[in-house]
């Protein structure tokens, strides 16, 4: 009975949890609700993944209405992949959040923080689960509004400005997306993605579709911080509360990538150049720029959170590069990097959050020699940093390996060289952090610190451990990414 309603439970559980957390008005109760809700959501997500692997596409009709009239949720290998990733990260974030939030957010706002965290998760999962173009916009806004609030809860006054700037950019992005959806609706008379695909076949070459695709791609590119539309991201990640940064960095941009892939491949077809716009060439150019320019900027930052945030923009470049290559190997590499990057960036932001918890600062100058007093935390940060570079034995190596194979398969040898060359920039910014935290004489701040509490170390090391595990035995994530890529490229689920 319940099994047939799994797709909708994925959204209802965190949504209901958010309401309960808000009603409780009590920090600890709200945290407990958030923890239980996210654990239940994760169980639902894994059950869905298991069913998709066994049976293929799951179609769920909200309220029993046919897709022509109502909203349909469609879970296929791609959605299941994203849903599992988001819900697992959300659960680990909740474990991590309790201590970190108590230290960073004033007591009367803690319950609201968990409300927003759950709303954000519900929105992100909704985008991945829904098969309705307008419904995806609504979920996009649910998660975005929650995100703006989460960022504004940061303890620095600059968090307010970061939230405001993201609100402006995010709303423009979502509005551009909904303009594109409107044009598709006018051309096809439906909002259901499955039906849109059927009806678009007879509309090839229509100018309205070209315009719609342009609006949708630019709109989503703003949300996923594709270079050069990434200006909102470094401030937002740097000033948000640590626990919020972990969730946002690991999931929010990833779900936007999912939405982009959905439109480029499923809606507009495997041939991703529509009409007069050479989208794959543009995407390759911007991805390469993202791999180099923000990573180079990261080298000169002094705030570790900012370094990691700029590195995120660079890493998103590798993911969109996988989409732009549009062959099985390249797309597998892109999706795999999406998965691996979520784990390694989650671990990295958890580690720096733990440093902020003990030392009260994320400025590199103040963190000299902090590895001597917080060895476990800094070791997790180092593992995540090695994975960002793509050192063999970490998951980052596996996904970059697939990307390089994909580039060679597409006949773009120079692109393979650029992928390797851009990794050298990561060596510089990671190397700078590693040098300061391990090899310098401990500064006053570092000498006073103790190791982070177990509640922070546990989720951090689950992610750091997974980064190493999936670097050595990558079969499970590669299998997930490969079947997701096959579905996107039009094969059997």
């Amino acid at each position: 009975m319940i099994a047939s309603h799994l797709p909708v439970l994925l959204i209802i559980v965190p949504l209901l949890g958010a309401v309960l957390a808000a009603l409780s008005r009590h920090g600890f109760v709200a945290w407990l609700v958030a923890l239980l809700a996210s654990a239940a959501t994760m169980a639902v997500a894994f059950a869905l993944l298991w069913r998709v692997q066994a049976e293929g596409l799951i179609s769920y009709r909200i309220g029993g209405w046919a897709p022509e009239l109502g909203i349909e949720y469609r879970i296929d290998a791609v959605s299941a992949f994203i849903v599992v990733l988001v819900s697992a990260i959300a659960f680990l974030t909740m474990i991590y959040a309790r201590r970190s939030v108590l230290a960073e957010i004033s007591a009367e706002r803690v319950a609201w923080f968990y409300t927003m965290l759950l709303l954000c998760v519900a929105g992100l999962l909704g985008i991945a689960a829904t098969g309705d173009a307008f419904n995806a916009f609504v979920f996009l806004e649910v998660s975005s509004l929650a995100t703006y609030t989460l960022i504004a809860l940061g303890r620095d006054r600059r968090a307010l400005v970061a939230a405001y700037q993201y609100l402006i950019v995010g709303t423009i992005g979502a509005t551009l997306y909904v303009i594109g959806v409107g044009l598709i609706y006018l051309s096809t008379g439906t909002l259901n993605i499955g039906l849109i695909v059927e009806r678009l076949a007879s509309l090839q070459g229509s100018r309205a579709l070209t315009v719609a695709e342009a609006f949708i791609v630019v709109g989503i590119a703003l949300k996923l911080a594709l270079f050069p539309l990434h200006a909102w991201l470094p401030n937002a990640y740097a000033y948000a509360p640590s626990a919020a940064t972990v969730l946002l960095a690991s999931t929010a941009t990833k779900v936007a990538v999912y939405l982009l892939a959905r439109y480029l491949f499923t809606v507009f077809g495997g041939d991703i150049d529509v009409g007069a716009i050479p989208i794959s060439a543009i995407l390759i150019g911007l991805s390469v720029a993202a791999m180099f320019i923000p990573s180079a900027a990261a080298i000169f930052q002094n705030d570790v959170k900012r370094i990691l945030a700029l590195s995120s923009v660079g890493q998103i470049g590798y993911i969109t590069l996988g989409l732009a290559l549009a062959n099985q190997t390249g797309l597998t590499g892109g999706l795999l990097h999406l998965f691996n990057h979520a784990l390694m960036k989650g671990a990295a932001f958890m580690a720096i959050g733990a440093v902020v918890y003990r030392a009260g600062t994320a400025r590199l100058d103040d963190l000299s020699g902090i590895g001597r007093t917080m060895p476990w935390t800094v070791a997790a940060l180092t593992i995540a940093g090695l994975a960002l570079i793509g050192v063999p034995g970490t998951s980052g190596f596996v996904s970059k390996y697939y990307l390089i194979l994909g580039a060679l398969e597409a006949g773009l040898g120079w692109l393979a060289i650029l992928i390797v060359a851009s990794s050298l920039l990561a060596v510089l910014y990671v190397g700078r952090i590693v040098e300061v935290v391990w090899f310098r004489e401990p500064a006053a701040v570092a000498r006073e610190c103790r190791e982070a509490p177990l509640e922070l170390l546990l989720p951090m090391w689950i992610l750091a451990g997974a980064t190493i595990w999936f670097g050595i035995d990558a079969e499970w994530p590669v299998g997930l990414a490969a079947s997701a890529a096959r579905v996107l490229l039009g094969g059997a689920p």
Partner: protein
Amino acid sequence: MTAHFSQSATILLMVAGLYIVIARGNMVKKLIGLSMFQSSVYLLYILPGKLIGGTAPILGAGYSVYANPLPHVLILTAIVVGVATLALGLTLVVRIKEAFGTIEEDEIAGDMRSDGSKPGRGRKSA
């Protein structure tokens, strides 16, 4: 021009709104521009649903031509989203005014730079 009057109005509103967001440094004016930009989308959806001489969708004899109700319902949702965004945006502006004493982006950018160059902000400073 007159044949596409409503479409022209939609696009004018869209472009003007976006221009205000980009060109103005005052945070409240930016939000007004953003709101205009969003309103143009409401028109974009609703206009094609209107049929001249059409009625509300009523099932019964004598009602053969009716307007499509779906765009209206969609835009009702979009309006709610727009109101929520504007409310949150204005709330942030109020908080920014309290924290920085101004809502001009140029002046705030200067303050943010000087915040960044201060030596280690301890955890008790918040």
